[in-house]
């Protein structure tokens, strides 16, 4: 039966291709008609969704086999001396899961956008970008080798650039888009290098071939060089995810990316693209596994740091979307350190659940913003629950999910991560994770209480969003509630997606209890602060004004980067330009000047006095004679008369 499944899997290429087709159609044919464009795009993504579901089911049915032997289709793409690259599709549980998540969220978002983007003059363009994004994201998921993955990786980057800057007339959007692209480029620089070194050492970039090559040659110093070499490669490759998934030093772009339309933020900057880094690390996990342990240590540490770092910033933010952005960063940190502590399963699991509930919350926020006529400051909102019941409810589900309240999806995944952290012997990481969970619960519920509870504001007249927007919310809410159950033994998520020998981790109820408590504490604190006003947030802020400023200004990282760019980079640029004009070019012009000048000087030798000419003439003769004569002392005795007399 695996056979016919395999026939099915061979059609996987259709999943990215259909959206691409719709992109082409919209771009070249139907961009005039908004309705047609959106319809085509949504149809395309929905058919991709159904295909993805089919493939997912196929994967589940084919069971163990496919875990060991992914269904791979390859066609030669580039074949020259010293560089052979294939393009193809790989179908295994990992990619199947990603396919499902991406197509689902993407289709939800596209449907949602019907309402949200209604009346925007760039409507068709928007859907074209959406389709392009979907196809490149899916292509990346299906990539069979690192280069192919990198290509789509960059393409999703491009789409993110285009969509962040969708309202390009807004200077802020324009700048944010630029920032996003450049920041991720820094990471890609490392990824590119890593790829090159990998190819140099192993002669292939194909995931399967690479892992085989590593397993066989890991001891063979001749091939691999020192273990340090692999570690170097691991770090280089990891730079990519750091940029893409907004890990600590390169996280700055993600919050600004919120300048884009909210559905975009939901799709790209919460659910799918930003987790590409996590996905890449998962795909390349064998590399990190073979590298020196410190590589994974580093990933875990960085992830944990990012998690708490971003969470702490989120506490002090006022913009609804920025809060969600920082929470995304923090959750990405979670996934990273899950990988770092060696649990591919947990990480992927959290990736999935997070995709559901974060997309949900973003779309919810979107519908709030829509209702508030594009106000985003949470303090200008309040008591929206009554006005927008569906949005409110679904959003609340999201909050519970992210806070890790059972039985919502977030609970399972987060718990699994924390459990692995502790079991694989990273107590500190575990502690950080736990505290982050608490913070997360706090700021999320803070957001919820401020926006939906509390007194209503007179000035705004919110109303529930149209169906096109609420239906996706409900669907996503459904997944946020039940998405976690796949971890239950009978569904056995872990037996599909894992690295190395599969061993099932029973849910440790004790640990789970602790994290649940942490989550509830957070919610409770928020309740006490923002509903009951038992604790005055202002007082706390005033008391620790230093820390508060620090958090509010995101630890001044942006300022630092700006300073570096404007003073160091541009300064250097100016200096070099000066050097180029006045030194390099100066030499050239100087030579020209000398040439012309010497001409001007030399022409003075033509005095016009013919007697001068005559004298010059004759003395030149004399000098030449002298040079000839004494040039090499060939005429010792110069006595012309005597020598002439010689003929007498």
């Amino acid at each position, binding site marked *: 039966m695996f056979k016919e499944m395999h026939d099915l899997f061979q059609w996987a290429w259709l999943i990215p291709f259909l959206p691409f087709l719709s992109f082409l159609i919209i771009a070249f044919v139907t961009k005039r008609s908004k309705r047609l464009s959106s319809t085509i795009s949504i149809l395309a993504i929905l058919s991709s969704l159904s295909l993805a579901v089919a493939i997912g089911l196929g994967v589940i049915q084919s069971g163990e086999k496919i875990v060991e032997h992914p269904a791979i289709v390859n066609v030669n793409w580039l074949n020259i001396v010293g560089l052979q690259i294939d393009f193809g599709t790989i179908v295994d549980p990992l990619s199947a899961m990603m396919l499902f998540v991406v197509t689902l969220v993407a289709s939800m978002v596209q449907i949602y956008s019907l309402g949200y983007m209604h009346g925007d003059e760039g409507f068709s363009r928007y859907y074209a970008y959406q389709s392009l994004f979907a196809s490149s994201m899916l292509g990346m998921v299906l990539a069979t080798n690192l280069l192919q993955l*990198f290509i789509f990786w960059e393409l999703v980057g491009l789409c993110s650039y285009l969509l962040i800057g969708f309202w390009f007339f807004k200077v802020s959007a324009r700048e944010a888009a630029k920032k996003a692209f450049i920041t991720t480029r820094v990471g890609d620089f490392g990824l590119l290098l890593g790829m090159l070194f990998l190819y140099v050492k192993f002669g292939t970039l194909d995931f399967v071939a690479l892992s085989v090559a590593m397993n066989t040659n890991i001891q063979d110093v001749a091939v691999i060089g020192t273990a340090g070499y692999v570690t170097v490669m691991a770090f280089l490759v990891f730079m990519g995810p750091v940029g893409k998934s907004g890990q600590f030093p390169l996280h700055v772009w993600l919050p600004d990316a919120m300048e884009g339309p909210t559905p975009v933020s939901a799709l790209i900057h919460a659910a799918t693209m930003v987790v590409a880094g996590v996905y890449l690390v998962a795909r390349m996990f064998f590399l990190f596994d073979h590298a020196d342990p410190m590589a994974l240590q580093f990933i875990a540490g960085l992830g944990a740091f990012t998690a708490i770092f971003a969470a702490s910033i989120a506490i002090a933010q006022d913009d609804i979307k920025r809060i969600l952005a920082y929470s995304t960063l923090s959750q990405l940190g979670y996934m990273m350190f899950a990988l770092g502590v060696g649990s591919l399963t947990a990480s992927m699991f959290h990736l999935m659940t997070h995709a559901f509930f974060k997309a949900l919350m973003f779309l919810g926020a979107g519908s709030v913003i829509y209702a508030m006529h594009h106000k985003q400051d949470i303090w200008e909102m309040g008591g929206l629950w009554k006005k927008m019941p569906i949005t409110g409810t679904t959003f609340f589900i999201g909050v519970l999910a992210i806070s890790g309240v059972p039985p919502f999806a977030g609970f399972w995944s987060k718990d699994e991560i924390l459990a692995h952290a502790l079991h694989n012997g990273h107590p500190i990481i575990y502690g950080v994770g736990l505290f982050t969970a608490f913070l997360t619960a706090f700021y999320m519920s803070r957001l919820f209480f401020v926006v939906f509870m509390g007194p209503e504001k007179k000035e705004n007249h919110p109303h529930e969003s149209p169906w096109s927007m609420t239906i996706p919310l409900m669907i996503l809410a459904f997944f946020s509630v039940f998405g976690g159950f796949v971890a239950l033994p009978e569904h056995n998520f872990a037996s599909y997606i894992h690295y190395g020998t599969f061993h099932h981790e029973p849910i440790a109820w004790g640990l789970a209890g602790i994290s649940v408590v942490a989550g509830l504490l957070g919610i409770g604190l928020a309740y006490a602060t923002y509903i009951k006003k038992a604790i005055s947030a202002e007082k706390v802020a005033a008391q620790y004004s230093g820390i508060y400023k620090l958090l509010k200004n995101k630890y001044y990282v942006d300022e630092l980067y700006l300073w570096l760019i404007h003073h160091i980079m541009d300064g250097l640029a100016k200096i070099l330009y000066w050097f180029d004009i006045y030194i390099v070019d100066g030499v050239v012009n100087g030579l020209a000047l000398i040439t012309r000048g010497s001409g001007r000087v030399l022409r003075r030798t033509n005095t016009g006095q013919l007697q001068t000419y005559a004298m010059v003439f004759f003395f030149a003769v004399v000098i030449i004679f002298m040079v000839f004569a004494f040039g090499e002392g060939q005429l010792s005795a110069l006595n012309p008369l005597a020598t002439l007399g010689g003929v007498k």
Partner: protein
Amino acid sequence: MTALPTVSSMSMLLPFTLLAPLAAMLLIVFLPKEETKTIKIIAAMGMLVSLVLSLYAFLNYQWEPGGMQYTLTIPWVPDLGVNLALGVDGLSLPMLLLTNLIGFASIYASWNIDKRVKEFFVLLLILIAGVMGTFIARDLFIFFLFYEIVVIPIYIMVIIWGSTKRVTKEYAAMKLTIYLLIGSAFLLVGMVALYLAAGANGNPTFMFDQLSARQDLYSPAFQKVAFALMIVGFGSLISMFPFHSWSPDGYAGAPTAVSMIHAGVLKKIGGYGLIRLGIYVLPVGASFWAPYIATLAVISVLYAAFIALAQKDLKYVVGYSSVSHMGYVIIAVAALNPTAATGAVGMMFAHGVMAALFFSMIGFIYEKTHTRNIADLGGLAHQMPRLAIGFMIAGMASLGLPGTVNFITEFTIFMGVINVLPVHAILGIAGIIFTAVYILRTIANVLFGPRRAEWDHLTDIRGPELVPLVIFGFVIFFAGIFPNVLLGMIDSGVTSSGLAKVLETVSQAKIGGLF
């Protein structure tokens, strides 16, 4: 040994390709200068013929035997051993195609010229034909002949149709011309020396293949000197630091079509020459100089990228960026291995297409807004979406976005370079970041941002003006998505032309590696 006249079924293909523009040129010469429309159409027709022919040559080229095809050899100056030898292989064919693509597009890019139309197109066609000739020449003398033919029309075109910005167009033109000519003086000396050395055993020749077949006649010392001369000559042509300072000024001064052709193909003659003549004929000299060239190349990559950050004039940005991109080509040449060589030629093609698109778009912007000062522009995407698309495509190609041909060629270069000159490679790759910075800044400041009332009267590009966008856009993405079409061709050239073998022997002598 003057090669015997080879009879190949297709031997007249290349002459016709070369003569089509010249025929059009002659037609135009005899047209009254008022018939501007007809003149333009004839010019376009001429280029179209030549484009179609070269496309046919490209598609009909047999990779399997490879080597020089469509060859034609006529003894020209027997006492010098000069043959009028034409022919193309995997290395030159892409460049030929590129020349015709850009030539054809450049006609349309200058469709709105209204000043001295007749003279403009006459000179333009001569220019194109000259560039074409350098790439199909199999004889060094002919190669050089065609190369120098090109220089003077450019001068005249710049002084008449150019524009004065930071520097006057007269200055720019003179700088461009004299700089390249003096560079070519070095080249000439090297060429004559090579010719004499090769002719030592009695039968002089200029044929590339025979020059390289007579390796044993060149002492290592001689090779070093000769190659040094080549570097200066070709290096200043491909604008390698520190011989680059003509290029930004030149492009800034030149009219659009000239900038397109100059940055698009003319510059590539330098890289092509370095490969065809430098490596192929003087491998020992090449391997001696390679580390130094590589260093200079890396400097040009980063240095020019940084300077581009500080530019205020669009053409200067692209001018410096082309200097920076050429740095990659030179690194690849210095890496001395087949992969890198393939990448180098591929990169030349890719950059040619990209630069031409960029310059044509800038040309339209300048034509419509009468400014190239980035600060004065902004929000053009509102009024001119199609132009914005073209500009975006060019920009994205320039920063090596996957899916564009520029990415895969750059990648090939890095792949070839990384294990020979790792440090250079890493530094060079770091350049992609800064490239992204200045390109994105430019795009952001020119196309995006709030709508500006003063540009509301502008009309988007349409009709003939779209030709460059369509052609180049198509090529960029097609070759980017199916790289085998281009790189496979070049690869066959590298292997079949014997270049690979030469590189094989050279690479035995390890050069400036790290590992």
